């Protein structure tokens, strides 16, 4: 009996797949159980395993102290605010970009534009952030020079030192860095649309704008919906690298987000339980957002992620 089971199943293949499972247990599932830290008081402990076993549960104490934190409102409004900015401006940008690129008839123009606009995606935020900071610098930064020459401003503006500009800087720099690459997925979706639809529409007398509006857009709608749902569920996730690079002491009131706060308080000040609670709080809201937006999308658009 045993030997037939051994023969029936392919154990070598099982072994290979289990390598992945072991990896996920070590680096994903065990940390998930670390969530209990949020319900204990382990701030500042040195021996983690010992503290994990011995410290008593304190319920939602860490969550309550996060909500009573004087920075709580700032952090939440910055995190959501910047993401809403991104949802309104950065989300549609690559769709429009892909549609425009799709209308280009000269292949070499299309290829050149693609090569240039994909490039920043592969540069780190450290480099790109450094470039953005120097472009915006009040000492002869190119943006200030151009704005002064156009007569829009009289004195150089310290863009990075004024908290009010921060959200816009994050949004615009994010669009420039990511628009080309984000458009790839829409271009792939456009390439998948049946050409016969365009031919039929042309015969029926549809012009280019009508074909764009009635064939291309509906053709990529399901891709758009899926990516929209995913970005809604990411409403509390920030691009850490980007915000950390652009952040400084002067703009902190508008630039501190959950992710940067967790890093500063959790790692440097060793407030493990407090920041794990912040992380759990974030995951819970992300889950509710994904579930809720998926449900709404299923009801009103007839499709969801799952």
């Amino acid at each position, binding site marked *: 009996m045993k030997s037939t089971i051994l023969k029936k199943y392919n154990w070598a293949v099982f072994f290979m797949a289990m390598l992945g499972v072991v990896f996920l247990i070590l680096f994903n599932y065990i*940390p998930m159980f670390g969530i209990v830290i949020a319900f204990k008081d382990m701030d500042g402990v040195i021996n983690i395993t010992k503290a994990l076993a011995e410290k008593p549960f304190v319920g939602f104490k860490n969550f309550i102290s996060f909500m009573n934190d004087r920075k709580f409102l700032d952090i939440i409004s910055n995190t959501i605010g910047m993401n809403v900015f991104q949802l309104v401006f950065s989300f549609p940008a690559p769709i429009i970009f892909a549609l425009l690129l799709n209308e280009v008839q000269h292949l070499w123009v299309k290829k050149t534009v693609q090569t240039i606009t994909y490039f920043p995606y592969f540069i780190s935020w450290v480099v790109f952030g*450094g470039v953005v900071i120097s*472009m915006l610098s009040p000492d002869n930064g190119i943006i200030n020079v151009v704005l002064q020459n156009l007569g829009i401003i009289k004195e150089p503006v310290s863009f990075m030192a004024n908290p009010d500009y921060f959200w816009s800087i994050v949004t615009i720099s994010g669009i420039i860095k990511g628009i080309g690459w984000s458009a790839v997925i829409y271009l792939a979706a456009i390439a998948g649309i049946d050409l016969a639809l365009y031919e039929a529409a042309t015969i029926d007398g549809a012009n280019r704008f009508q074909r764009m509006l009635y064939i291309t857009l509906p053709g990529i709608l399901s891709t758009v919906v899926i990516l929209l749902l995913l970005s809604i569920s990411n409403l509390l996730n920030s691009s850490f690298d980007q915000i950390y690079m652009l952040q400084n002491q002067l703009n902190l009131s508008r630039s501190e987000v959950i992710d940067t706060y967790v890093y500063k308080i959790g790692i440097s000040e060793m407030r493990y339980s407090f920041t794990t609670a912040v992380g759990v709080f974030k995951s819970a809201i992300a889950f509710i957002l994904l579930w809720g937006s998926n449900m709404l999308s299923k009801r009103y658009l007839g499709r969801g992620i799952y």
Partner: protein
Amino acid sequence: MLKSMKKFDYFNYIFLILFSCITLYPFIYVLAGSFNQGTDYMNGGVYLFPRVFSLDNYKMVFNDKRLYYGIQNTVARTVLGTAAGLLFTALVSYGMSRKDLILKKQIYWFNLFTLFFNGGLIPFFLVLKIYGLINSFWVYILPNLYSVFNMIIFANYFREIPEEIHESAVVDGANEFTIFFRIYLPLSKPVMATIALWIGVFHWNSFFDSMIFTTEPKLQTLQLFLVKLIKEASLGQGQANIRVPAHVLNTVSITTVRYAGIIVSSVPILLVYPFVQKYLVKGVMLGSVKG
């Protein structure tokens, strides 16, 4: 109607070309500044080409010990991390792609669940601490060995390879490992190239893990060095012993030295990008077409 379409085309081309220039220009701006003498740069007006050519900014950057540690660690993690990550993920994906895998559905869900849920930064940090990976070079390699996203792309690709090839190899007496290494890997060169590049770019660009999982300067990566260079208020703050001639120190500026640092740490990507661009894009198509 024809006229308005022409107008749209003009507008479209001008817009796209202008946007490309806006994307490209910052890099030219930084490149020009990095080759310009520091004190002269402060007078403004260096936009396209260096006005007073100088290599002093690069001399300053190359005088910083942290740069050498950074290059060492970044090159080591990029080479080792890419090779190990690629091979490990490909091997697991081969197992995942086979139809005769036991508990196939359960293992798939076990993988997919991690895409939607994780413990957060602090539990991850503490677990790495327990494993002894904090302040170890291996923290760059081990946690990045496997990626569920890349596994899905690999497995999809492996499934496209005709089953007859596998069958005939089995008839010839090859075991699964031989089939993977001798047949499947050589047949998947395009997808291997794409994923290798993604992993490579990830390793080259990451600084977050270096910043939180290491405290020793000898273990820190090139990008983290650049973070410090950009965030430092003045020159030489982190440079233990500066062995630069006085006339260089008097003419460089923190801004232009930063530019030199930016260029040095992005040179490899600048150099290879035009040649590998098509492989980078291919993977998105592979992933998105099959969902």
